[in-house]
């Protein structure tokens, strides 16, 4: 315990000394965690103008080592002595990894000219483009940050895929999203003392939100990798404007829209229930041009919608999942709650919704015995009343209205919502899911329906 105390005290004293000699004191310092491969973590304030050599000078005594026996690792790269802190793109409360070298000779052979990891991965020919200094400020990764609850600029970070330690250096730079998103693409060295993978391992890439102070190890953001910096100045295919950030669809043609048009497009197709439920990608849409194999393969991109729109997206997606899994949607108008059903039981209760009790097969109010066909549905209740003459008359009334109701409503073939037919047109548009269907055929409305029984 006393050791740790001395240790921290030492660091503080060291920092103090360095700041007192600097003209740019504490108000400009960055609070950084330094994690050592021995397991200790230190909190230090670093002057952004310092270089890595200065950092090593502070850290080395705490590791019981000389400054040149220490290496500093950040985002998958060992940092050179001459690198200035402010060029490292460290955010407040970022973590640097300090490793005490066991064998100096290994280091000598491994020493490479280390540059910082590029902050962007783009495809092939854009790599050279990105190395131009003037593009650096415009090139970012974009993430969905759940802490900020918004799309934000993200930072690519690297750790050991096995022990999750950040004391990990990569053998090669990632060159594409494939390298970053798929496991075991980029190899490297793990410097963590007790790593089960030993020295050689695979890099695991992840993202942090650059716009809030890091809240610890699990503060990870989802990459929105279809958002790109529009360095090629491609106009949006919908509004034709050239925007800085664009949405690039996964089709071979890589069609581009601006973010605003992406939102308009997604909401439009969502309201029309034109999204599809894909087994591997989830509830999604394809390129607006209708290209083949262009489904958006990461549904977090729909987080670009507003909160309300995203809630609608989730609701619709859940409904589709339930229908696909053999469940039903509550047929009560205005409810539509998705219900997972037991196929052995025909009685369904809308438990989490309106409480309606209905028949699994005909979606009418629950009944005992066979379902009556839609056209002549007479409920058992009505038949029981017929014994009393006064009631018999009423029963006929009930029966008549009952029949009338049955005949003028049919369930939408897509979502099963009871839809009322008004007028003589057979072309039905579901009020709930906007599905166009034919009253006669009870399937999707077609030109054939138009030609043979449009009216009647």
């Amino acid at each position: 315990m006393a050791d740790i105390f001395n240790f921290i005290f030492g660091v503080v004293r060291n920092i103090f000394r360095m700041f007192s000699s600097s003209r740019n004191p504490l108000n400009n310092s960055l609070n950084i965690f330094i994690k050592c491969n021995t397991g200790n973590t230190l909190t230090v304030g670093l002057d952004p103008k310092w270089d890595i050599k200065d950092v090593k000078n502070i850290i080395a005594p705490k590791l019981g080592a000389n400054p040149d026996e220490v290496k500093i690792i950040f985002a998958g790269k060992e940092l050179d002595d001459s690198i200035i802190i402010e060029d490292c793109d460290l955010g407040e409360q970022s973590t640097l990894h300090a490793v005490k070298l066991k064998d100096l000779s290994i280091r000598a052979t491994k020493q490479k000219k280390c540059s910082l990891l590029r902050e962007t991965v783009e495809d092939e020919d854009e790599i050279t483009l990105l190395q131009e200094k003037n593009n650096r400020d415009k090139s970012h990764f974009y993430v969905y940050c759940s802490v900020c609850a918004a799309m934000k600029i993200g930072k690519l970070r690297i750790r050991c895929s096995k022990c999750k330690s950040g004391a990990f250096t990569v053998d090669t730079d990632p060159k594409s999203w494939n390298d970053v998103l798929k496991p075991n693409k980029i190899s490297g060295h793990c410097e963590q003392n007790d790593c089960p993978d030993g020295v050689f391992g695979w890099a695991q890439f992840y993202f942090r939100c650059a716009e809030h102070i890091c809240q610890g190890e699990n503060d990870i953001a989802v990459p929105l990798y279809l958002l790109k910096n529009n360095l090629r100045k491609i106009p949006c295919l919908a509004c034709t404007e050239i925007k800085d950030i664009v949405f690039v669809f996964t089709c071979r043609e890589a069609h581009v829209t601006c973010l605003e048009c992406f939102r308009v497009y997604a909401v439009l197709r969502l309201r029309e229930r034109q999204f599809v439920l894909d087994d591997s990608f989830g509830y999604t849409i394809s390129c607006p041009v209708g290209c083949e194999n262009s489904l958006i393969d990461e549904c977090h991109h729909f987080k670009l919608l507003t909160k309300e729109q995203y809630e609608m997206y989730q609701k619709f997606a859940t409904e589709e999942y339930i229908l696909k899994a053999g469940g039903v949607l509550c047929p009560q108008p205005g409810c539509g709650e998705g219900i997972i059903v037991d196929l052995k039981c025909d009685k369904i209760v809308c438990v989490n919704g309106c409480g309606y009790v209905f028949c699994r097969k005909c979606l009418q109010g629950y009944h005992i015995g066979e379902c009556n066909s839609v056209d002549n549905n007479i409920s058992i209740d009505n038949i029981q009343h017929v014994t009393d003459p006064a009631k018999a008359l009423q029963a006929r009334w009930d029966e008549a209205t009952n029949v009338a109701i049955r005949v003028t409503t049919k369930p939408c073939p897509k979502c099963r919502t009871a839809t009322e037919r008004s007028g003589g047109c057979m072309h039905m548009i579901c009020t709930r899911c906007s599905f166009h269907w034919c009253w006669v055929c009870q399937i999707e409305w077609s030109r054939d329906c138009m030609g043979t029984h449009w009216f009647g």
Partner: protein
Amino acid sequence: MASPSPSERRLQKELSSLMKDPPPGVSVDANAVYQHLNLWNVHMKGADGTLYQGEDFQLQFRFSSKYPFDSPEVTFVGDNIPIHPHVYSNGHICLSILTDDWSPALSVQSVCLSIISMLSSCKEKASTLSIEKH
């Protein structure tokens, strides 16, 4: 005034490009469009050397707020509706790019070009389609 929607921005751009660089025989009634950006009247001349040479037609483009993700509604209007197998007497045009094959990468310009080529390729002024055959 609220900033224009993507759909309005797109229509404004298309309007100026159509005025600057119209397909042959096509002109747009810009003054009317300025009043209603979502309703365009486009004049089209029957191309020389075709069955429609010397004829004047009027097309009406109606754009919903879903444009360009959904197609515009395009019909022939006025008293001269071209006699063509894919044009109904009420002005409705049977052209796949106006329904199933629409893509936001198309434009008023490309629709006009398709209609011109549809008219130009006609060899015989046949009667219009019946609705069943559509």
